[in-house]
């Protein structure tokens, strides 16, 4: 197998990742801690044909999601045409009325989209989640690839593995494409954010300035970095802060962070915000249900990628199915992320099952239920042996002058045998994703 020669280097590569500070932060019991993100040198390998299908499907999906975002904040035609129910579109917590009527530079809303997929045992890919706000994780495989290449010349010389270390360059092209005049900035909430390493790494390698909110200010609807005496205009801001902490004058009035009047500069067309505020209107777990319909509606095409079979309890038939099959389904809270709020019915006690049944009846809009996709396990080197572990894939789609898929992705694996929880915050590790060119 292609990976065999790399397995033995796993500990050394992890040492090097520690040397470079490749970490993520986590809050536990009110305490901030930095953890290494365990790396497994056995990659996920995607052959050229499978990638071709995935790539076309991902571009199609993200193009449809961008079209929906433009529509939901302007014409609302899909809602008028009954494609997406009004109460779903506007009741989504990610829908921001403050963004009504704003069309961002070049009409792009989701510049960096992280689409979470799993591959089932018959090699069908299912989309589990769309992340259109601030998806993270692209830096890790890019850093790891560099180290893996140092371990084994023949593998990387002989196999047609597509380059993935150019992600920061692709990001830069996305920023340059919508830049309204000025420097590019990566806006981070700060040192104690869980993805701070990535913020700093991407700034360094894309040539952008890493800035915290208080290093930016708005004057006459123009965003600047620096101080009164020495400042530079900002043309594009790759923000890695949540919508509600972007601008305290527009969103969360109680917030002490954020850049006052940033939204005014954005509304005036003087700065591009990547990704656009309000994108949560399209990556809500409930709106996810409608994405295949969006593909048909906006693009006039059949969806290439499938959703995991999903039920919305707000619909009578779906509610009946969910109630009858709760013990076999995955229940997800619409408002949660990061693997939280995900419950497998099969693992609930009879009492908890009844508790969830009642919660769903009480607040059907806050839940979706999905069939359990029995996704494949990948060989993973843990504890000195190669063992199977469930793994997903976060693919990154970059929307710039064209929509492109980064030919790699973050493959996350579960640490525990049999577990499907792959999130780093819950102990998961990561792999490189090799996309073969032939």
């Amino acid at each position, binding site marked *: 197998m292609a990976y065999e020669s790399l397995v033995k280097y796993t500990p050394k590569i992890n040492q090097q990742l520690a040397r470079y500070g490749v970490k993520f932060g986590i809050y536990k019991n009110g305490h901030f801690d930095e953890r290494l993100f365990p790396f497994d040198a056995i990659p996920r390998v995607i052959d050229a044909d499978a990638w071709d299908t995935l790539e076309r499907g991902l571009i199609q999906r993200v193009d449809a999601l961008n079209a929906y975002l433009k529509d939901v904040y302007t014409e609302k035609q899909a809602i008028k045409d009954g494609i997406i129910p009004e109460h779903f579109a506007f009741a989504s917590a990610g829908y921001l009325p403050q963004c009504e009527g704003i069309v961002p530079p070049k009409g792009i809303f989701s510049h960096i989209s992280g689409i979470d997929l799993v591959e089932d045992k018959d090699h069908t890919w299912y989309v589990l989640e769309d992340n259109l706000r601030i998806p993270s994780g692209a830096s890790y495989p890019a850093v790891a690839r560099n180290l893996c290449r140092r371990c084994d010349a023949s593998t990387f010389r002989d196999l047609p593995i597509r380059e993935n270390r150019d992600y920061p360059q692709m990001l830069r092209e996305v920023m340059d494409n919508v830049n309204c005049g000025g420097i590019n900035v990566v806006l981070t909430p700060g040192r104690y954010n869980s993805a701070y390493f990535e913020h700093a790494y991407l700034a360094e390698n894309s040539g952008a300035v*890493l800035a915290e909110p208080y290093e930016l200010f708005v004057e006459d609807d123009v965003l600047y*970095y620096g101080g009164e005496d020495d400042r530079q205009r900002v043309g594009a801001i790759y923000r890695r802060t949540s919508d509600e902490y972007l601008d305290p004058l527009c969103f969360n009035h109680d917030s002490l962070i954020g850049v006052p009047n940033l939204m005014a500069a954005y509304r005036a067309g003087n700065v591009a915000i990547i990704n656009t505020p309000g994108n949560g209107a399209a990556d809500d777990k409930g709106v996810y249900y409608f994405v295949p319909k969006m593909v048909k509606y906006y693009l006039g095409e059949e969806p290439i990628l499938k959703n995991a079979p999903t039920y919305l309890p707000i619909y009578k038939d779906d509610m009946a199915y969910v109630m009858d099959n709760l013990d076999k389904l995955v229940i997800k809270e619409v408002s949660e992320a990061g693997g939280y709020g995900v419950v497998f019915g099969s693992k609930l006690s009879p009492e908890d099952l009844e508790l969830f049944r009642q919660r769903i009846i009480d607040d059907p809009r806050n839940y979706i239920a999905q069939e359990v996709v029995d996704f494949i396990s990948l060989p993973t080197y843990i504890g000195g042996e190669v063992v199977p572990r469930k793994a997903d894939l976060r693919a990154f789609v970059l929307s710039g002058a064209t929509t492109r898929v980064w030919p790699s992705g973050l493959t996350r694996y579960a640490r525990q045998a049999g577990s499907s929880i792959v999130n780093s915050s819950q102990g998961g590790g990561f792999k490189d994703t090799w996309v073969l060119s032939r």
Partner: protein
Amino acid sequence: MGTLSVTKADHLLWLGRYVERTYTTLRFILHAYDVALDDPLGNWRDQLEELGFREEEENPYTFVRDCLFSPTLPSSIRHSISAAYDNAVTLRDCVGTEAIAYVQMAYDNVGSAETSESPLLDLQAVIDDIMAFRGCIDDYIADDAVRSIIKVGMGIERIDLYTRLNFELERLPQEVHRLASRINRTGIAYDQESFRGVVDMVFDPAFPGNMTYEQLGELLKLDAHIFG
């Protein structure tokens, strides 16, 4: 790099200061430990107290361990390298991952030494990492202002510590000379009068032979006011 925000300049200055504080304090503690083995009642304890280490511990080895690894003493090596690390990670875009890796390694190696059976031997790796960081700055950082701020931070801290500890004072003219060649390249404002005062004191032909405790205190004050 172009414009540096005030925050970033501040992080750069303090990165330099804390790296230097780790390095010089570590060297001094190793020196003090060695002296203490032969002279348990010597001046070394007073000198460490100048750094804020006020321990009742009589055993030099235990006392020195606290100076090195105490999480609560702000002058401990552990505290200094943690502060250096906290500043370094915010500067990846202007200092670079390759250079920051040496601060990361120094930080990790302090942690390893703390749990080692031979911490004083293992801390050599921390000195090596810091020297590598100092050396790589010229190679990895293209922006002269960024380089200069880090180096000025190191210089200010070294003058402070040498003065505070009454340690290798004869090296101060060389340190001040280095500082003079850098300080105007930082692009940040400083108190020129205080700096001139430092220059006058250390380039006095009689320096350091006749320095009184009060004069050293004055030198410390002037040094602190340069960027105060």
